[in-house]
Protein backbone atom coordinates (compact mmCIF):
# COMPACT_ATOMS: atom_id res chain seq x y z
CA UNK A 1 0.00 0.00 0.00
CA UNK A 2 1.28 3.45 -0.90
CA UNK A 3 2.24 5.87 1.79
CA UNK A 4 0.58 9.23 2.30
CA UNK A 5 3.47 11.55 3.05
CA UNK A 6 5.29 8.73 4.79
CA UNK A 7 2.23 7.41 6.61
CA UNK A 8 0.83 3.95 5.90
CA UNK A 9 -2.90 3.93 6.51
CA UNK A 10 -4.33 0.87 8.21
CA UNK A 11 -7.43 1.02 6.00
CA UNK A 12 -8.13 2.90 2.75
CA UNK A 13 -11.17 4.70 4.13
CA UNK A 14 -11.21 8.39 4.98
CA UNK A 15 -14.41 9.56 6.62
CA UNK A 16 -15.88 13.01 7.14
CA UNK A 17 -17.26 14.09 10.50
CA UNK A 18 -20.17 16.34 9.44
CA UNK A 19 -23.94 15.90 9.27
CA UNK A 20 -24.38 12.90 11.57
CA UNK A 21 -27.68 12.74 13.52
CA UNK A 22 -25.79 12.91 16.80
CA UNK A 23 -22.22 12.87 18.17
CA UNK A 24 -22.86 9.37 19.52
CA UNK A 25 -23.70 8.09 16.03
CA UNK A 26 -20.63 9.86 14.62
CA UNK A 27 -18.40 8.00 17.08
CA UNK A 28 -20.12 4.65 16.41
CA UNK A 29 -19.89 5.13 12.65
CA UNK A 30 -16.16 5.71 12.90
CA UNK A 31 -15.62 2.60 15.00
CA UNK A 32 -17.67 0.45 12.63
CA UNK A 33 -16.09 1.86 9.48
CA UNK A 34 -12.53 1.26 10.70
CA UNK A 35 -11.72 4.53 8.91
CA UNK A 36 -8.10 5.52 9.27
CA UNK A 37 -8.53 9.24 8.59
CA UNK A 38 -11.09 11.77 9.85
CA UNK A 39 -11.61 15.05 8.04
CA UNK A 40 -12.37 18.06 10.21
CA UNK A 41 -12.84 21.77 9.79
CA UNK A 42 -12.61 25.08 11.66
CA UNK A 43 -15.14 27.67 12.64
CA UNK A 44 -15.65 30.67 14.83
CA UNK A 45 -16.09 30.01 18.50
CA UNK A 46 -16.87 32.42 21.30
CA UNK A 47 -15.08 32.19 24.64
CA UNK A 48 -17.99 30.74 26.54
CA UNK A 49 -19.13 28.42 23.77
CA UNK A 50 -17.17 25.23 24.18
CA UNK A 51 -18.87 23.23 21.43
CA UNK A 52 -15.70 23.06 19.33
CA UNK A 53 -13.84 21.74 22.37
CA UNK A 54 -16.49 19.07 22.93
CA UNK A 55 -16.28 17.99 19.29
CA UNK A 56 -12.50 17.84 19.51
CA UNK A 57 -12.63 15.52 22.52
CA UNK A 58 -14.79 13.09 20.53
CA UNK A 59 -12.43 13.14 17.54
CA UNK A 60 -9.32 12.79 19.67
CA UNK A 61 -10.67 9.53 21.07
CA UNK A 62 -11.24 7.97 17.64
CA UNK A 63 -7.64 6.86 17.09
CA UNK A 64 -7.49 8.13 13.50
CA UNK A 65 -5.26 10.49 11.54
CA UNK A 66 -6.71 13.99 11.39
CA UNK A 67 -7.05 15.67 8.00
CA UNK A 68 -8.23 19.27 8.40
CA UNK A 69 -9.87 20.87 5.39
CA UNK A 70 -10.20 24.38 4.01
CA UNK A 71 -13.87 23.86 3.15
CA UNK A 72 -15.78 26.92 2.07
CA UNK A 73 -12.68 28.86 0.97
CA UNK A 74 -13.09 30.63 -2.36
CA UNK A 75 -9.75 32.45 -2.53
CA UNK A 76 -6.12 31.40 -2.31
CA UNK A 77 -5.50 33.74 0.61
CA UNK A 78 -8.44 32.42 2.62
CA UNK A 79 -7.39 28.83 2.01
CA UNK A 80 -3.76 29.51 2.96
CA UNK A 81 -4.69 31.37 6.17
CA UNK A 82 -7.18 28.65 7.12
CA UNK A 83 -4.52 26.00 6.50
CA UNK A 84 -2.12 27.77 8.86
CA UNK A 85 -4.78 28.00 11.57
CA UNK A 86 -5.67 24.33 11.08
CA UNK A 87 -2.02 23.28 11.35
CA UNK A 88 -1.76 24.98 14.70
CA UNK A 89 -5.02 23.66 16.11
CA UNK A 90 -4.71 20.08 14.94
CA UNK A 91 -0.96 19.86 15.17
CA UNK A 92 -0.58 18.26 11.74
CA UNK A 93 1.09 19.22 8.48
CA UNK A 94 -1.70 17.50 6.55
CA UNK A 95 -4.23 19.74 4.87
CA UNK A 96 -7.12 18.82 2.59
CA UNK A 97 -6.90 21.81 0.29
CA UNK A 98 -10.20 23.01 -1.11
CA UNK A 99 -10.45 26.17 -3.17
CA UNK A 100 -14.04 26.25 -4.35
CA UNK A 101 -14.79 27.81 -7.70
CA UNK A 102 -18.49 27.35 -8.20
CA UNK A 103 -21.31 27.59 -5.65
CA UNK A 104 -23.81 25.17 -7.19
CA UNK A 105 -21.45 22.32 -8.01
CA UNK A 106 -18.75 23.12 -5.40
CA UNK A 107 -16.34 22.40 -8.24
CA UNK A 108 -12.74 23.23 -7.31
CA UNK A 109 -11.12 26.33 -8.73
CA UNK A 110 -8.13 24.47 -10.09
CA UNK A 111 -6.14 27.61 -10.86
CA UNK A 112 -6.41 28.82 -7.27
CA UNK A 113 -5.82 25.28 -6.09
CA UNK A 114 -2.45 24.99 -7.84
CA UNK A 115 -1.39 28.41 -6.57
CA UNK A 116 -2.40 27.65 -2.98
CA UNK A 117 -0.79 24.21 -3.14
CA UNK A 118 2.52 25.81 -4.18
CA UNK A 119 2.44 28.29 -1.31
CA UNK A 120 1.48 25.70 1.28
CA UNK A 121 4.04 23.14 0.14
CA UNK A 122 6.76 25.77 0.44
CA UNK A 123 5.45 26.51 3.93
CA UNK A 124 6.01 22.87 4.87
CA UNK A 125 2.47 21.58 4.51
CA UNK A 126 1.61 18.13 3.19
CA UNK A 127 -1.18 18.95 0.81
CA UNK A 128 -4.10 16.69 -0.14
CA UNK A 129 -5.65 18.70 -2.99
CA UNK A 130 -9.37 18.27 -3.74
CA UNK A 131 -9.26 18.49 -7.52
CA UNK A 132 -11.04 17.44 -10.70
CA UNK A 133 -9.94 14.39 -12.69
CA UNK A 134 -8.09 16.65 -15.15
CA UNK A 135 -4.69 15.21 -16.05
CA UNK A 136 -3.00 18.52 -16.73
CA UNK A 137 -4.15 19.99 -13.43
CA UNK A 138 -2.91 16.83 -11.71
CA UNK A 139 0.49 17.37 -13.30
CA UNK A 140 0.59 20.99 -12.13
CA UNK A 141 -0.35 19.96 -8.61
CA UNK A 142 2.49 17.48 -8.54
CA UNK A 143 4.82 20.20 -9.87
CA UNK A 144 3.57 22.40 -7.04
CA UNK A 145 4.82 19.81 -4.58
CA UNK A 146 1.73 17.71 -3.84
CA UNK A 147 2.48 14.04 -3.26
CA UNK A 148 -1.17 12.96 -3.05
CA UNK A 149 -4.07 13.73 -5.42
CA UNK A 150 -7.74 13.68 -4.51
CA UNK A 151 -9.90 13.86 -7.66
CA UNK A 152 -13.65 14.11 -7.24
CA UNK A 153 -15.97 11.28 -8.23
CA UNK A 154 -18.94 13.65 -8.51
CA UNK A 155 -20.00 16.92 -6.87
CA UNK A 156 -19.77 17.02 -3.06
CA UNK A 157 -22.83 15.56 -1.36
CA UNK A 158 -24.42 14.47 -4.65
CA UNK A 159 -24.02 10.72 -4.18
CA UNK A 160 -23.76 10.25 -7.94
CA UNK A 161 -20.72 7.97 -7.79
CA UNK A 162 -17.89 8.06 -10.31
CA UNK A 163 -19.05 10.35 -13.10
CA UNK A 164 -15.99 10.13 -15.31
CA UNK A 165 -14.58 6.64 -15.12
CA UNK A 166 -12.30 7.14 -18.07
CA UNK A 167 -10.80 10.25 -16.50
CA UNK A 168 -10.18 8.47 -13.19
CA UNK A 169 -8.67 5.50 -15.02
CA UNK A 170 -6.28 7.61 -17.02
CA UNK A 171 -5.21 9.48 -13.89
CA UNK A 172 -4.36 6.14 -12.30
CA UNK A 173 -2.51 5.02 -15.42
CA UNK A 174 -0.50 8.22 -15.70
CA UNK A 175 0.50 8.43 -12.06
CA UNK A 176 1.06 4.83 -10.99
CA UNK A 177 3.23 5.84 -8.01
CA UNK A 178 1.18 8.72 -6.61
CA UNK A 179 -1.37 7.94 -3.88
CA UNK A 180 -4.77 8.72 -5.39
CA UNK A 181 -7.97 9.20 -3.41
CA UNK A 182 -11.48 9.56 -4.80
CA UNK A 183 -12.89 12.41 -2.77
CA UNK A 184 -16.56 13.41 -2.97
CA UNK A 185 -19.56 12.10 -4.86
CA UNK A 186 -19.62 8.60 -3.40
CA UNK A 187 -23.16 7.58 -2.48
CA UNK A 188 -22.99 3.78 -2.31
CA UNK A 189 -20.57 1.07 -1.24
CA UNK A 190 -20.44 -0.05 -4.89
CA UNK A 191 -19.05 3.37 -5.82
CA UNK A 192 -16.37 3.06 -3.15
CA UNK A 193 -15.55 -0.49 -4.22
CA UNK A 194 -15.35 0.63 -7.83
CA UNK A 195 -12.87 3.38 -6.98
CA UNK A 196 -10.70 0.84 -5.18
CA UNK A 197 -11.01 -1.63 -8.08
CA UNK A 198 -9.62 1.07 -10.37
CA UNK A 199 -6.50 0.90 -8.25
CA UNK A 200 -7.13 4.00 -6.18
CA UNK A 201 -5.42 4.05 -2.83
CA UNK A 202 -8.29 5.32 -0.71
CA UNK A 203 -11.71 6.92 -0.82
CA UNK A 204 -12.93 9.90 1.15
CA UNK A 205 -16.65 10.14 1.86
CA UNK A 206 -19.02 11.71 4.36
CA UNK A 207 -22.63 12.30 3.30
CA UNK A 208 -23.12 8.71 2.10
CA UNK A 209 -22.64 7.51 5.67
CA UNK A 210 -23.90 10.47 7.70
CA UNK A 211 -27.17 10.85 5.78
CA UNK A 212 -27.98 7.15 5.49
CA UNK A 213 -31.05 6.02 7.43
CA UNK A 214 -28.69 3.98 9.59
CA UNK A 215 -25.25 5.62 9.43
CA UNK A 216 -23.54 2.94 11.52
CA UNK A 217 -24.77 0.15 9.24
CA UNK A 218 -23.69 2.14 6.17
CA UNK A 219 -20.27 2.69 7.75
CA UNK A 220 -19.98 -1.08 8.03
CA UNK A 221 -21.01 -1.49 4.39
CA UNK A 222 -18.37 1.03 3.31
CA UNK A 223 -15.70 -0.78 5.32
CA UNK A 224 -16.55 -4.03 3.52
CA UNK A 225 -16.68 -2.27 0.15
CA UNK A 226 -13.26 -0.65 0.32
CA UNK A 227 -11.75 -3.87 1.59
CA UNK A 228 -13.35 -5.85 -1.25
CA UNK A 229 -12.35 -3.29 -3.87
CA UNK A 230 -8.80 -3.14 -2.60
CA UNK A 231 -8.48 -6.94 -2.54
CA UNK A 232 -9.88 -7.06 -6.07
CA UNK A 233 -7.32 -4.55 -7.33
CA UNK A 234 -4.48 -6.53 -5.73
CA UNK A 235 -5.88 -9.74 -7.24
CA UNK A 236 -5.60 -8.24 -10.77
CA UNK A 237 -9.10 -8.65 -12.20
CA UNK A 238 -9.77 -10.46 -15.47
CA UNK A 239 -10.27 -8.40 -18.60
CA UNK A 240 -13.87 -8.07 -19.75
CA UNK A 241 -14.65 -9.69 -23.11
CA UNK A 242 -17.33 -9.17 -25.70
CA UNK A 243 -18.23 -12.86 -26.08
CA UNK A 244 -19.04 -15.64 -23.64
CA UNK A 245 -16.26 -18.00 -22.69
CA UNK A 246 -17.49 -21.18 -21.03
CA UNK A 247 -16.35 -21.46 -17.47
CA UNK A 248 -16.97 -25.16 -17.23
CA UNK A 249 -14.19 -27.18 -18.93
CA UNK A 250 -15.28 -28.43 -22.35
CA UNK A 251 -12.81 -31.31 -22.41
CA UNK A 252 -14.26 -34.71 -21.69
CA UNK A 253 -17.84 -33.65 -22.26
CA UNK A 254 -19.97 -36.70 -23.02
CA UNK A 255 -21.89 -36.83 -26.30
CA UNK A 256 -25.40 -37.75 -25.24
CA UNK A 257 -27.34 -36.76 -28.30
Amino acid sequence: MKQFYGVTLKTPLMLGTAQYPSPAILADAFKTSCASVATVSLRRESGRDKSGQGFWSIIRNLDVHILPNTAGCYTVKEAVTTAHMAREIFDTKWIKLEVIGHTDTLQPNVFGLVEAAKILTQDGFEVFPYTTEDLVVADKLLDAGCQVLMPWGAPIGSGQGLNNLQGLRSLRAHFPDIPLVVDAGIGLPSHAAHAMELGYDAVLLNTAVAKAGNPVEMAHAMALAVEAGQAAAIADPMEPRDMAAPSTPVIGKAFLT
Partner: protein
Amino acid sequence: MKINVNGKPQELKSGSLSDTLAELGYGDAKIATAVNAEFIPAALRDTYALTEGDELEILAPMQGG
Protein backbone atom coordinates in the same frame (compact mmCIF):
# COMPACT_ATOMS: atom_id res chain seq x y z
CA MET B 1 -10.43 49.72 22.88
CA LYS B 2 -13.01 48.51 20.39
CA ILE B 3 -12.18 45.51 18.22
CA ASN B 4 -14.28 43.11 16.18
CA VAL B 5 -14.20 39.57 17.56
CA ASN B 6 -15.54 37.04 15.05
CA GLY B 7 -17.38 39.87 13.35
CA LYS B 8 -18.95 41.34 16.50
CA PRO B 9 -17.72 44.65 17.95
CA GLN B 10 -16.49 44.33 21.53
CA GLU B 11 -15.03 46.76 24.03
CA LEU B 12 -11.84 45.30 25.48
CA LYS B 13 -8.91 46.38 27.61
CA SER B 14 -5.85 47.03 25.49
CA GLY B 15 -3.01 44.61 25.73
CA SER B 16 -1.51 41.62 24.01
CA LEU B 17 -3.50 39.07 22.06
CA SER B 18 -2.94 36.64 24.95
CA ASP B 19 -4.47 39.10 27.40
CA THR B 20 -7.44 39.60 25.10
CA LEU B 21 -8.04 35.87 24.75
CA ALA B 22 -7.92 35.50 28.52
CA GLU B 23 -10.31 38.41 28.92
CA LEU B 24 -12.71 36.78 26.45
CA GLY B 25 -12.69 33.57 28.48
CA TYR B 26 -10.82 31.19 26.14
CA GLY B 27 -8.53 29.84 28.85
CA ASP B 28 -6.60 26.91 27.43
CA ALA B 29 -9.18 26.14 24.73
CA LYS B 30 -8.00 24.64 21.45
CA ILE B 31 -8.21 27.63 19.14
CA ALA B 32 -6.29 29.46 16.42
CA THR B 33 -6.26 33.19 15.80
CA ALA B 34 -6.05 35.59 12.89
CA VAL B 35 -5.95 39.38 12.99
CA ASN B 36 -7.05 41.36 9.93
CA ALA B 37 -7.07 38.10 7.95
CA GLU B 38 -3.43 37.29 8.86
CA PHE B 39 -2.72 34.17 10.88
CA ILE B 40 -1.14 34.92 14.27
CA PRO B 41 0.61 31.83 15.65
CA ALA B 42 0.14 30.97 19.31
CA ALA B 43 3.82 31.68 19.97
CA LEU B 44 3.35 35.33 19.00
CA ARG B 45 0.21 35.97 21.05
CA ASP B 46 2.12 37.25 24.08
CA THR B 47 3.88 39.95 22.09
CA TYR B 48 1.21 40.77 19.52
CA ALA B 49 -0.57 44.01 20.47
CA LEU B 50 -4.09 44.54 19.21
CA THR B 51 -5.11 48.01 18.13
CA GLU B 52 -8.41 49.82 17.81
CA GLY B 53 -10.56 48.51 14.98
CA ASP B 54 -8.68 45.21 14.52
CA GLU B 55 -10.61 42.26 13.13
CA LEU B 56 -9.87 39.29 15.37
CA GLU B 57 -10.94 35.83 14.21
CA ILE B 58 -10.92 32.98 16.71
CA LEU B 59 -11.47 29.52 15.24
CA ALA B 60 -12.01 26.14 16.88
CA PRO B 61 -12.40 22.55 15.64
CA MET B 62 -15.67 21.69 13.95
CA GLN B 63 -17.28 18.95 11.91
CA GLY B 64 -16.07 18.74 8.31
CA GLY B 65 -16.10 16.53 5.23
